[in-house]
């Protein structure tokens, strides 16, 4: 009896270890990180690209024309892209395959996919640094209709030879998102430090208001002014990338350059200003921030537990989709990120893009042509434009889009308002940040600062030295 049991158990052990072995490769990465993606089929795990390819491969292309294979960056719009691909194939007969990389794995998936025989013909880079990585694969788009339709030619990624290698397909903006209902409730309280949001046009004023709001948080029914400053590993991009862009923008501006091999982090104190304000007026204690994810922050905002959160217009979906959200559409507004830099009264939102389309230069000519036709269809045909604006929510920077062809969610509307109200937009300079390793180290230092293990001077030193090291390392 006992022997039988043992053997049975051992069998279970054996089988289970096999199951674990098989199961983990296919499901872990996408399931854990990209709930929005449509399971394994569309989001290949980095470990198993070969298996995925054969599974997802559609019938071969028609004999004459090429085919399109788009490696999509945004898991949140995967379903929309599949729909677009099907619609385009139905209309033109050209095969379009869209694969979405799981959140945070785009570079890995692109690396393995592009080395294969059925490589993506259309992919995206995140700016000059990404171009440096993929320049061997980027087709010169100077004469393409896509580039010619771009309304601001300066937005495109250009190479050393003057060619155009990446064309942005959307413009995005970020700043401090606030809940106007809570702000109005605050302005109505006794001794409010401001009477309207328009009066908040500098860091000093923002600080005054925020600290007063924290003091009155019980009356306002909030747990803190700012949503928790998410510092869980991998969830810190709002700070080490987006917030860090502000001081770097001003440092570039002072030096009249668009990139620097070494920075002095001249405006580190300004970063510290807003950072301290964020973490000390938050919904939780600074020591707990290491357990918070971006979705936690957005949920807090959507549920009305806080009045402000730093994020971009892409976050509207995350706010509106939260179950039981209490924030009204008309109350969601943007405010610039003030850090106490001279002249910031005229500062607008941080506006730019890190989504550039590139056409694979090593694909066959037929495929390249099919791909260019496809993107051209996206920006010029009525159906394509409809998808761009309504399904994908892209604020497309192309002259082919009329004034009425813009996304209409509240944050996008706010973005257009800021673009048109004469304020100076802060450009996205984080596309020149040296590497992911630099950003990760910066984020780790911010976490250490919150936990009291590092002083601000340590953080500043780390940023300066790591920037120089990483710039040197990647320049080789």
């Amino acid at each position, binding site marked *: 009896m006992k022997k039988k049991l043992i053997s049975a158990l051992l069998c279970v052990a054996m089988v*289970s270890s096999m199951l674990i072995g098989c199961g983990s490769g296919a499901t872990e990465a996408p399931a854990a990180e990209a709930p929005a993606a449509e399971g394994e089929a569309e989001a290949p795990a980095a470990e198993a690209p070969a298996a995925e390819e054969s599974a997802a491969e559609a019938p071969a292309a028609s004999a004459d024309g090429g085919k399109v294979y788009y490696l999509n960056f945004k898991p949140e719009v995967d379903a929309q892209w599949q729909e677009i691909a099907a619609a385009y194939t139905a209309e033109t007969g050209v095969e379009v395959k869209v694969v979405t990389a799981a959140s945070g794995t785009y570079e890995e998936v692109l690396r393995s996919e*592009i*080395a294969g025989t059925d490589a993506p013909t259309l992919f995206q880079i995140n700016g000059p640094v990404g171009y440096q990585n993929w320049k061997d694969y980027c087709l010169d788009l100077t004469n393409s209709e896509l580039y010619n339709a771009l309304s601001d030619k300066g937005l495109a990624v250009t190479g050393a030879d003057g060619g155009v290698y990446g064309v942005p397909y959307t413009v995005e903006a970020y700043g401090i998102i606030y809940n106007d209902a809570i702000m109005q409730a605050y302005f109505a309280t006794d001794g409010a430090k401001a009477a309207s949001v328009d009066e908040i046009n500098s860091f000093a004023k923002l600080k005054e208001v925020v600290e007063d709001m924290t003091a009155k948080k019980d009356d306002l029914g909030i747990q803190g002014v700012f949503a928790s400053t998410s510092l869980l590993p991998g969830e810190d991009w709002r700070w080490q990338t987006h917030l860090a862009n502000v001081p770097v923008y001003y440092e570039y501006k002072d030096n009249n350059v668009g990139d620097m091999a070494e920075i002095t982090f001249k405006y580190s104190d300004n970063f510290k200003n807003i950072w301290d304000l964020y973490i000390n007026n938050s919904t939780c204690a600074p020591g707990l921030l*290491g357990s918070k994810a971006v979705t936690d922050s957005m949920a807090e905002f959507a549920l009305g537990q806080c009045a402000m959160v730093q994020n971009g217009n892409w976050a509207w979906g995350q706010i509106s989709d939260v179950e039981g959200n209490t924030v009204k559409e008309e109350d969601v507004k943007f405010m610039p990120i003030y850090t106490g830099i001279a002249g910031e009264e005229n500062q607008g939102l941080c506006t730019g893009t890190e989504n550039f389309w590139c056409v694979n230069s090593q694909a066959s000519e037929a495929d390249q042509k099919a791909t260019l036709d496809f993107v051209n269809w996206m920006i010029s045909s009525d159906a394509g434009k409809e998808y761009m604006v309504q399904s994908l929510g892209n604020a497309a920077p192309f002259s082919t889009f009329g004034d009425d062809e813009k996304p209409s969610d509240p944050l996008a509307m706010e973005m257009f308002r800021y673009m048109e109200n004469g304020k100076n937009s802060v450009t996205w300079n984080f596309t020149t940040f040296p590497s992911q390793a630099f950003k990760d180290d910066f984020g780790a230092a911010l976490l250490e600062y919150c936990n009291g*293990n590092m002083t601000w001077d340590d953080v500043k030193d780390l940023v300066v030295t790591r920037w120089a*090291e990483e710039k040197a390392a990647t320049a080789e």
Partner: protein
Amino acid sequence: MEKTLKKYFLIFTLPTVIAFAFAFLIPFVQGVYLSFCKFTTVSNATWVGLKNYQDAFSGGQGFMSALGFTASFTVVSVITINLLAFTIALLLTRKIKGTNVFRTVFFMPNLIGGIVLGYTWQQMINAVLYKYETTIVANAKFGFWGLVLLMNWQMVGYMMIIYIAGLQNVPTELIEAAKIDGATPWQTLIKVKVPMVMSSITICMFLTLSNSFKLFDQNKALTDGAPMKKTQMLALNIYETFYGRTGYEGVGQAKAVVFFIIVVAIALVQLSFTRSKEVEQ
């Protein structure tokens, strides 16, 4: 018989040999080759010689500190896992009521994947630390012991099964003889049972050692190296070298080759050591 075996050896092993070659040998050889190259995609590489290996060991790469953390983690977890697993196995080979239930329960964690476990334990540990207004990433010690706890929880059950199988194969004559000779239970354990289950110990030591050394999923999910890469293990360090920075794919590859050599060396030393202690039954 021998002859026929030899004759058909190739035919019968061919499928496995082919699979092994495609899934292991070819990628392995290519991987070693790539460690001497600078590349972005595997099909487009240029030879740079030993430069990647030099870079791999330079200061900013964190390879040595990851090695240190991995080594101390491995030592602690190998000892704790095996001690715990053996103790539980001893308890569950006595005739206690509900032995089967216990065995199943202890074995269950092994059925859950590493990433899931990592996130689950992260939540649980953070929930406990919440009381002290801190998190698992606040201090490298939390991460270290969290990882040890996680690995114990996951692997003890599996090792326990192997030990149980070993213990049940100890001939009862030997134990009875020892009893008649007046051996205490402790003496029976040390002088009879342990030498007799030495082959199980070899297997368990090998499994825990190599699994702890190669740990990746759990490390990535639980702390992802935070704070400041102080809880980063070798596999994670290699992964981040490969993907963290443009132009460092080759360095990551070089590290991976070094990692492979270390793992093989340790495994061989450990195997020959524990094997020498095994006794014929």
